[in-house]
């Protein structure tokens, strides 16, 4: 936990410096007749972020914040494993949306999670995994006219568009 606290603060400080540098691409000073430049607001806020990070590091040295006193691991093995399985699954789902679209990626993710992580029966798994895309299609594509990405499966939907849209 102690190491994580310091690492995070340093990473966030680096990000703050990056934001300050990036804000400075627009004028950060006073433009006569126009008011503060477009970069001023984010620049000074990023400076405040940086100052907060320095403060967090000082607290780390003084051991005055709870995470900087804790000897517990930031994440134990079990937590890392869960995080990897679940986070990995969500990441894979979003990546698959580019290829198979929502209606391919969504059931695969639900099957992965409910059947393989949750160890539920195939009946439960398939009932949810197959009904979810149908609900999503009618709610978003048909009712809201928010067209979900279809990836390479787009041609399969053309007949459905003809009927419902």
């Amino acid at each position: 936990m102690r190491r994580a606290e310091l690492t995070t603060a340093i990473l966030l400080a680096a990000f703050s410096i990056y934001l300050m540098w990036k804000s400075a691409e627009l004028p950060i000073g006073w433009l006569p007749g126009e008011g503060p430049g477009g970069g001023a607001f984010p620049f000074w806020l990023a400076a405040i972020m940086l100052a907060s990070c320095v403060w967090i590091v000082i607290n780390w040295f003084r051991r005055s914040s709870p995470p900087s006193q804790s000897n517990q691991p930031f994440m134990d093995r079990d937590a890392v494993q869960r995080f990897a399985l679940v986070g990995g699954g969500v990441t894979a789902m979003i990546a698959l949306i580019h290829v198979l679209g929502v209606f391919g990626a969504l059931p695969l993710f639900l099957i992965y999670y409910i059947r393989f992580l949750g160890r539920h029966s195939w009946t439960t798994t398939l009932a949810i995994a197959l009904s979810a895309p149908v609900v999503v299609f009618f709610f978003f594509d048909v009712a809201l006219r928010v067209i979900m990405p279809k990836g390479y499966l787009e041609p399969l939907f053309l007949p459905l568009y003809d009927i419902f849209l």
Partner: protein
Amino acid sequence: MEILQHLFDGFLIAFQPLNLGLVVLGVVVGLFIGAMPGLGSVNGVAILVPMTFLVPPTSAIIFLAAIYYGAMYGGAISSIMLGIPGASTAVATTFDGRPLALKGLADKALLAAAVASFFGGTLSVILFTGFAPPLASVALSFGDPEIFALMLLAFATFVGLSGDDIPKTIFSIAIGLVLSTVGFDFITGEPRLLLFNLDGFLNQINFLVLAIGIYGIGEMLWTIEVSRGNSTMSKAVITVNRMLGNVKELLGTWKIAVSSSFLGYFVGILPAAGATPGALMAYGVAKMTSKNADNFGKGEVAGVVAPEAANNAASTGSMLPMLTLGIPGSPTTAILLGAMVIWGITPGPTLFVDEPELVWGLTASLYVANLFALLANVFMIPLFLWVLRMPFTILAPVIFALSVIGGYAATQRLFDVWLMLVFGVVGYLMRKLDYPLAPAVLAIVLGPIAEPKLRQSLMISDGDFSIFVTRPISGTITVIAIILILMPLFKLIRDRMRGGSDRAA
């Protein structure tokens, strides 16, 4: 009397079939969301905003507010039956609700929670109806400096009152505001903060991307880690005779219900405070003033009444600054405010003039939502107990899927879905290190309003920051904000002095 006339018009809107249906649906969905451990009103509202584009704004906000209310009622159900707060706002309800359930008196605790929630909710809506119009008409005269000062005050309450780590709170506020400036400079139209030169950042970051990332994906990751063990559910025996006895006992706690409602309402108005601390404070006060103080924590009905009345009152309280000043009183109302902007409604005091239908329809619907939540709570308890048995390994993937799809629907860019995942994961890791995340969500909603107010104020004054102090109203607000920001410093000095004198003695 004018208020009553408006309220009557509001009821006509609230009783339109569509709106009435949405109140009922919202309350049921909210009860469910509140009852599920790991999901609270803010999660439900964040994930469901993209689905509300189906109906007109007034109906949409009525639906979302009904979810907010339902979730406040629902949080108590799992606090009592599982001993796990269904939402952070129901933490204090576990203190006495759980012991009652373990004694076999779950029905008494559930009824107390439902009735107290109704009482707190209704009393606070009455207060809201009385307070909101005069406050809004005062706020109508506010100029840019005043509005900016109010926002400063909202952020200051996080620093001074939230009790979180101070540099981490300030960091959270600042990063939320910086993220809100990504996209383009609204005055010159030039691209601004094109992070890592990714074209996706040519657009503003929609607040929903951050809100769903944190409250959908991040929250699920968090809950998966925290809720490793299995929970055991208590049994509830419900019969008419027992109910009559319970009602009698409840009538004896009305004083606590009144004081808790007032306390919750006023705490709820503060952006950093809200329902969770409101409920905890009400519990504390009830314990202090009760004759049976020793029985608190062992299964005292008043210990359920106090936090439940307070958390419902607080949720109404947080609507007051949102509707009258355009400053959300809680993360949930921050999301409601952001949603209003998407719908093309300008939040703030002009709302009462420009959108009376929305304001009064919403107000009236709060009365209806409370009544319906009470009925649903009393008559549908067996259904919710059944729902609570739903395994988390089914709920979690459904929430992940809803987050991804809702995140896409909000902006219709896959780039934003990736960004949402990044926010969710980073938010989860930062939360583990005690970084508060609510200030960042509030900041990304308020940022696009705060920056123009600041820049316009400075243009009026030609760069002189004293404009925020010299005008009477903004001056007062700014001074209060500065005192709040410095409050932790005062405390530190006081503690030092005390520590010093102790050592000297």
